[in-house]
């Protein structure tokens, strides 16, 4: 009978919730107890350096384009050797939603996310992280990638000296 099965369903539900009353809560009392996030946890953003110690960020603006909340802004500039870098780079962590799209968009692996999630501040302006706050002395998750070695335009190495590059064409040569 339908009514019997309906009542059983209701009572089963009641019985399950009754059992749960006596279970051990899963709550972690955050400020006192802390759990260690996984290494790939997506929290505070950093800017990494390439294995040679140079800034990886080339200020290509892809992260700011990918950012759904527009919390990244920057100004690119050119160094004397033709290397493109960020004159200033700002992440407004009061807006950041830690979606990780910037890290995903970064073609040079400069933007990476760290497991440090405790970045609350009393003054909201302190959540404006500038390049000097973001830049770390390390490669982060990729130890051997240097964008400029593979870019093919010769900034860190002479033109045509990069991996898988032929030496520059001699324009005045007559041979085909």
């Amino acid at each position, binding site marked *: 009978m339908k009514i019997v099965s309906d009542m059983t369903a*209701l009572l089963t539900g*009641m019985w399950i*919730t009754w059992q*749960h*009353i*006596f279970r*051990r*809560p*899963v*709550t972690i009392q955050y400020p006192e107890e802390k759990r260690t996030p996984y290494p790939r946890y997506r929290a505070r953003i950093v800017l990494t350096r390439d294995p040679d110690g140079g800034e990886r960020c080339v200020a290509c603006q892809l992260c700011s384009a990918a950012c759904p909340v527009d919390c990244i802004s920057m100004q690119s500039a050119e160094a004397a050797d033709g290397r493109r870098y960020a004159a200033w780079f700002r992440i407004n962590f009061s807006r950041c939603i830690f979606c990780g799209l910037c890290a995903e968009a970064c073609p040079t692996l400069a933007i990476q996310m760290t497991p440090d999630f405790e970045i609350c501040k009393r003054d909201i302006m302190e959540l404006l992280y500038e390049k000097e706050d973001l830049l770390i002395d390390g490669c982060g998750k990729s130890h051997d990638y240097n964008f400029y070695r593979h870019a093919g335009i010769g900034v860190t190495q002479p033109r045509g000296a990069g991996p898988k590059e032929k030496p520059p064409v001699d324009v005045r040569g007559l041979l085909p």
Partner: protein
Amino acid sequence: MIYDPLDIALMLAKIALVFFVILTLAAYLVFAERKVLAWIQDRKGPNRVGPFGLLQPLADLIKLLTKEDFRPIGADKWLFYLAPAMAAIPAIMIFAVIPFGAPLRLFGHTVQLQVADLHVGLLLFVALSSLAVYGVALGGWASNSKYALLGSIRGLAQLLSYELSMGLSLVPVVMLARSFRLSDIVAAQAGCWFIVYQPLAFMIFLISIAAECKRIPFDLPEAEGELVAGFHTEYSGMRFGLFFVGEYLNIIALGGLAATFFLGGWHGPLLPPVVCFSVKVLAFAFLFIWIRGTLPRLRYDQLMHFGWKILTPLALLNILVTAWWLVLRG
């Protein structure tokens, strides 16, 4: 008419006692609800303010009192201010007729543990619960907000419908006790609780009072998934607090009435009468919390369908059967 000063003093004392106890109880019921819900959901619940979070109700009160008292643009000023009171006052007034213990002998007087032993006590309860509708209706309407208005329209229809089945489910009780006086009803259950004779009426009454105090699964007037907070969407601070407290006062009052009508009131084995009564009331309160932690919300048409097409006919049938039985038994 001349009144005995002692009578007046006793009366005032009883009123003060009832006020103090039920208001404290209501506050702690909120706390209990949060705790039990948390346990059901494998959480810990409030545990920051005081030992085990026991001062949480106080913290809530301070928060509510210090919040901005906000009135939306276009709201109907007086009705907006009146509505929370209209919601809380009838709930408190119901306690006037509930006998919460056996009569006491005190200073040579027999003291009824009941504020007013009216011989239309049951009717007074029905009247007051029908007046409680106005808090919901006026609050939602005066807020000048579509969510609030929808909530109050739902509330009106729901309370009106379930009041009917609630009233009808009490008719067999009256027939058995042959009185509207609650002390008589309690007295009539000295031998056997009415739940034994009237399990169906008890179930109908239980469902109806769940709907009357707008509890899950009947919380459509304030369905937060659809209507933000329903009829009290626009309320803040202590005015919201009044609605909130009114709801918990209602739970206690209706729990007390359910105990009175079907579970023998203050009658009970071993324990003193007042404790017996309290245990029953708290059991009802726990039941409501438990149900809230278990059941999902009904759809509105299901709610109306259930009220009008199932509960009301069932209650009518129950009356007929009871009447027949009483007539046959003589």
